[in-house]
């Protein structure tokens, strides 16, 4: 497929990674974004890269340590993760998960309260214990999305910002062009990785993609002294210490929303920031004095079973749809690879990803959102 044209709708982390992977294979790539690449949830998340329940996990783990070198730009990727249990119940859950990892041969170590304090200097004596994952890791979402975008350009790919996709041209069971207000982009294949806007875009192709959008929030503090391992979370928050020392953490509860075809109207922070700060202060009491200097929110699309959708459609048969259900950032090196494989070869070369097919929702009840309580507050 070298030399053919692929248009990617959506310059989030998944679309950018897919574009980069395709460009590496000699494909001419154009990424269309409605605003600025990586400017929404792709750049505003916990940065975690330890998705052990995904079929893309092994590839995620294989690729992240190489990404700085492969992309040519820094991602701040760091290895390892420590979960700290702040309640008896969390401690039970974390030990259960640790046992599962041991069975799967993922290296984990249980830490008692004292070991937690030794491994995590900002922790206190108020925990029940911790689990050290000696795999996985985290990276800086803001830097990584920019790294993908630049690496893609370095391979000749094009990025067109401020250009929302309006519709598609189809012929002979294929999408032949993607249209924006100002231009029409002819294509041999299309990747739709437009996050919360996927359902409306795919509806134009007669394809129903069941997704519900929710707002998630994060906070970031002033810099704290550097910890030897920055991927510390637990206590119902997720996040990391940046290489500058700031603590960047997010967590629930989330709010279900409706999103227009043009995307989220706003991504407001709420007083949940205060609740996040409280949990962070409990998790890392020696950082409790730090001021919160930023807060932000992102809109995440979720599939009915919470798993990503990565699928090449049968009709139109040159369209790959990719929606990552809130695990898009960490899995991005692997999801991009999988999307590249689907576009070029029609099949993922490194993992069985049938579980991510859209067809699993063929018999989905029409009131699936209501049944799950995933409706916006009226």
């Amino acid at each position: 497929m070298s030399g053919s044209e692929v248009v990617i709708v959506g310059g989030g982390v998944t679309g950018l990674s897919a574009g980069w992977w395709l460009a590496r294979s000699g494909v001419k790539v154009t990424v269309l974004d409605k605003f600025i690449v990586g400017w929404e949830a792709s750049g505003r998340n916990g940065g975690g890269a330890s998705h052990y329940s995904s079929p893309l996990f092994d590839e995620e783990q294989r690729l992240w340590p190489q990404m700085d070198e492969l992309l040519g730009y820094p991602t701040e990727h760091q290895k390892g993760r420590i979960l700290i249990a702040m309640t008896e119940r969390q401690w039970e859950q974390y030990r259960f998960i640790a046992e599962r990892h041991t069975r799967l041969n993922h290296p984990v170590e249980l830490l008692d309260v004292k070991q937690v304090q030794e491994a995590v200097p900002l922790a206190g004596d108020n925990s029940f214990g911790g689990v050290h994952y000696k795999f996985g890791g985290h990276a800086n979402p803001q830097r990584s999305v920019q790294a993908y975008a630049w690496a893609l350009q370095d391979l000749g790919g094009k990025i067109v910002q401020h250009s929302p996709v309006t519709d598609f041209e189809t012929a002979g069971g294929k999408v032949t062009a993607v249209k924006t207000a100002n231009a029409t982009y002819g294509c041999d294949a299309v990747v739709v990785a437009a996050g919360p806007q996927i359902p409306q875009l795919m509806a134009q192709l007669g394809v129903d993609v069941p997704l519900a959008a929710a707002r998630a929030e994060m906070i970031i503090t002033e810099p704290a002294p550097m910890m030897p391992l920055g991927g510390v979370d637990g206590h119902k928050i997720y996040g990391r210490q940046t290489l500058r020392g700031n603590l960047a953490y997010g967590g629930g509860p989330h709010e279900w929303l409706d999103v227009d075809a043009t995307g989220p109207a706003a991504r407001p922070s709420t007083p949940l920031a205060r609740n996040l700060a409280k949990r962070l202060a409990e998790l890392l009491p020696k950082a409790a004095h730090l001021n919160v200097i930023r807060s932000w929110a992102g809109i995440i699309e979720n599939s009915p079973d919470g798993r990503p959708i990565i699928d090449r459609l049968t009709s139109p048969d040159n369209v790959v749809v990719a929606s990552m259900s809130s695990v898009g950032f960490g899995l991005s090196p692997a999801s991009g690879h999988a999307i590249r494989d689907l576009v070029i070869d029609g099949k993922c070369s490194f993992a069985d990803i049938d579980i991510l097919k859209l067809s699993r929702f063929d018999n989905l009840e029409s009131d699936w959102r209501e049944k799950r309580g995933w409706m916006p507050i009226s």
Partner: protein
Amino acid sequence: MELNFTGTDICAINGTRSAPETHYDIVVVGAGPSGVAAAIDAAKAGAKVLLVDENPVSGALMGNDIPLYFGGRMTAATQNTDRMLEAIFMSMPALENAMDAGVELLLGTTAWGVYRNGPGVASLPQQVVGLADSERSWLVGFDKIILATGARDLAMSFPGWNQPGVMGAAALQMLLTRYEAFAGQRILVLGSHDLALETALLAQARGIDVVGLIEVRDAPQGNAELVAQVAAAGIAIHCGQTITSATGGINGIESATLSTGDVVACDTICVAIGLIPSIELVDAMHGPRALNATRGGYIPAGEPSVTAVGDCAGLADSGFDHVAYRMDWMRALSDISADDTIICQCEEVTRADLIGVQPPNYLSRPAPMCARSLDTLLEDGPANPDQPARQPPRTGSSAAAQNPC
């Protein structure tokens, strides 16, 4: 798919947000003259009114240039919170009038955000303002909010500005008048518009040696009467010049070098080029704003539910184009700055790194990274000002969000 769903998502926010512990008819943020007057008016009209002001902030925060650009030129007196509280009451008799009128007053209390339902959020039981003092944070409900958050110092970078002794005009005025806690003795003032002229006259009246004003344009910019007063006070205004560097020692600034080559001995350089209306809370509310060059920059724009009074609603309009004036200063200071001039003190970003879109020094800079620049970024279309640093936006008005740059 045939699972038993309950119709409820226990992890969703629905119903989990409790109503705030207190509710006021009106909350006024900022206890400067405009805020106090608004609070008194509201209380006299029978409303239940809360008036909050973040001052006095702790000495440690003042050391971080919060809420104004103090430049480390505070005396040790600012470490004593009781003394600072007393100083505020002594300097603002209207505060007692407000309390007599029934206004509930909370000093040392920061309003860190204002939140209401709207696009993207429907989960708030009512509109709230987030407050915090040195002990705790809490939420307060309100029917109406009046923002009287004032204006903050505009900082500008030049070689050597990142030393103690470079400070803002609003900070200097606050230290001189409210706290009587300015630690400098000999100041050079940058700018010659009303702010600079008033600051120079005030400083001299308080016994500070004002060695002169530096004006980048060819003539003094402020109103003629103030210019005449400054001349009568024997303070020189050096026009068509700029500062090219500041040097200092362990205690900060010791001298400034001008574009003429003259070296001026001083312990403080007061950046009095302009003030910026503090509209962070308007932003946090997703309230509309508009650029108004004669009123100091972005100001709240026309939404009836957001009432802004005083400087945060826009500086007094004298027809002077503040934005064009700042740009003249910015160009002149940018021209004389070197690659290694620090632009952002908080994050230690140099001029070369900002323009080169380069990451901080703790990250590697492989060849493709070094080839990137602001120019290549702009080839992709209009950029967001936060894009070069790839930093998410700052919080509405948390204490640490107000650093000078």
